[in-house]
């Protein structure tokens, strides 16, 4: 039997997608013009699906810092920190993040995906139990599996369901870790953090929050959902990424535990991969300074999120979240509809994400937008107009599909 026969169904699904238009899961951007514009298919297109929440990718100070790092430290580190050396700038970034996040310890990872793999496999082991939200990102599922811990999945954003499961598992030996996300990547909804924190009084567990989509956005200082909710002291571990609001690549884990630094020696995704390149580290370090120094970026993304959310509501689109969020996901009837509409949106001049099962909760098909602080009000209006032409006329079909 051919090893890759098992992927035949993927090939067929992809072929069907291509038969309906462009490559929605591998779109070629010919030239990136700005955080919100690119040339796609020879046309200038508004980017509304790149998670570039703060528009940091073209920040002049970040670009300058990256260029300087290339000149001064070279193109790459060529190895892992524990085996091949830590650059001073790795530690400097960890200090800057520690100050920003108000956490004693920070470990930098090479990608956001690896931050979850590294933190979860470093925190939990085969004798422990991890309770994870059903809608968790794949990197959380994979990190949980890597840890070897018992994995208990609870219903999305349902603290009562977690409570029930913790009671059922009360006699299990070992430590317990609960994993939540600040903003869930597909629907854009937030964890009801206070409800989960209240359970800490009843059950003994450590709490980790992945602020990948909320860092820089929620809270007065952009430290995420925990800051917004005033519950930072109750969150034991924070995970985040550099590839969204910070406009680069990499990720981090942070906490105050006295043994936190030992994760560096217990976490394979930290130990056995190359450390982030000098240019990545330098741009992230500068981006954190920018986040701290420019609260107006937070005002802008909140304003833009509000404009897109209200605009879509006004069109009668079915949104997956009942609060304003920088992730605005529109539910559509089925996969062929999602593909057809995605193509029409790109042809109309806006790039958004197509999100299909099993990458989405509850088998939903989504056209997912992410808002940027760098979008102009005119760009947001244009996105709403294009959705009015392409998606709004199909509202009846979704209702019929249930």
């Amino acid at each position, binding site marked *: 039997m051919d090893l890759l026969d098992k992927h035949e169904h993927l090939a067929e699904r992809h072929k069907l997608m291509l038969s309906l238009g462009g490559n929605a899961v591998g779109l070629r951007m010919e030239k990136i013009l700005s955080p919100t514009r690119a040339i796609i298919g020879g046309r200038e297109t508004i980017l509304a699906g790149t998670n570039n929440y703060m528009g940091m990718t073209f920040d002049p100070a970040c670009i300058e810092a990256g260029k300087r790092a290339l000149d001064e430290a070279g193109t790459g580190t060529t190895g892992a920190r524990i085996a091949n050396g830590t650059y001073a700038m790795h530690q400097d970034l960890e200090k800057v993040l520690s100050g920003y996040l108000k956490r004693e310890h920070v470990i930098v990872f090479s990608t956001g995906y690896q931050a979850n793999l590294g933190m979860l496999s470093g925190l939990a082991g085969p004798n422990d139990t991890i309770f994870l939200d059903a809608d968790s990102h794949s990197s959380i599922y994979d990190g949980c*599996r890597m840890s070897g811990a018992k*994995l208990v*999945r609870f219903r999305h954003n349902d603290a009562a369901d977690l409570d029930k499961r913790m009671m059922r598992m009360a006699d299990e030996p070992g430590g317990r870790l609960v994993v939540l996300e600040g903003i869930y990547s597909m629907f854009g909804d937030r964890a009801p953090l206070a409800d989960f924190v209240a359970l800490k009084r009843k059950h003994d567990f450590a709490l980790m929050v992945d602020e990948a989509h909320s860092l820089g956005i929620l809270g007065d200082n952009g430290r995420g959902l925990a800051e917004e909710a005033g519950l930072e002291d109750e969150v034991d571990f924070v995970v985040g990424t550099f590839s969204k609001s910070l406009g680069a690549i990499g990720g981090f884990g942070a906490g105050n535990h006295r043994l936190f630094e030992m994760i560096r020696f217990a976490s394979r995704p930290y130990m056995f991969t190359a450390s982030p390149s000098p240019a990545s580290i330098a741009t992230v370090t500068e981006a954190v300074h920018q986040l701290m120094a420019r609260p107006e970026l937070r005002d802008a993304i909140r304003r833009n999120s509000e404009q897109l959310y209200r605009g879509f509501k006004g069109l009668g689109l079915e949104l997956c979240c009942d609060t304003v969020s920088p992730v605005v996901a529109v539910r559509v009837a089925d996969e062929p509809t999602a593909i057809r509409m995605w193509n029409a949106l790109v042809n109309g001049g806006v790039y958004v994400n197509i999100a299909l099962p099993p990458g989405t909760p509850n088998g939903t098909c989504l056209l997912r937008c992410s808002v940027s602080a760098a979008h102009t009000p005119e760009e947001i209006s244009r996105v709403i107009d294009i959705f009015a032409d392409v998606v709004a006329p199909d509202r009846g079909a979704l209702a019929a599909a249930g």
Partner: protein
Amino acid sequence: MTTSNDEIFEALCGLLEPFNTQKVDLKPTTDISADLNIDSVSVMDFVMEVEDKYDIDIPLNLLSETRTLQDLAVVVEQRISGS
């Protein structure tokens, strides 16, 4: 009260109904994911329904070796009896 393996199998078939969109004929040897052509998230959602029906937890790591309905019925039986 004990729940027999047959009873569990019948109950699993009932809970699987909404996920069995292709209306595959269910047997104890039916592979939940491959034969029913349902994705990994749907399998986990189905298992959540099973957990609620029996008031048990079936840790996800136990599922990696659970392929058929019969395999799952055995796991459910074990979790009910607390072993």
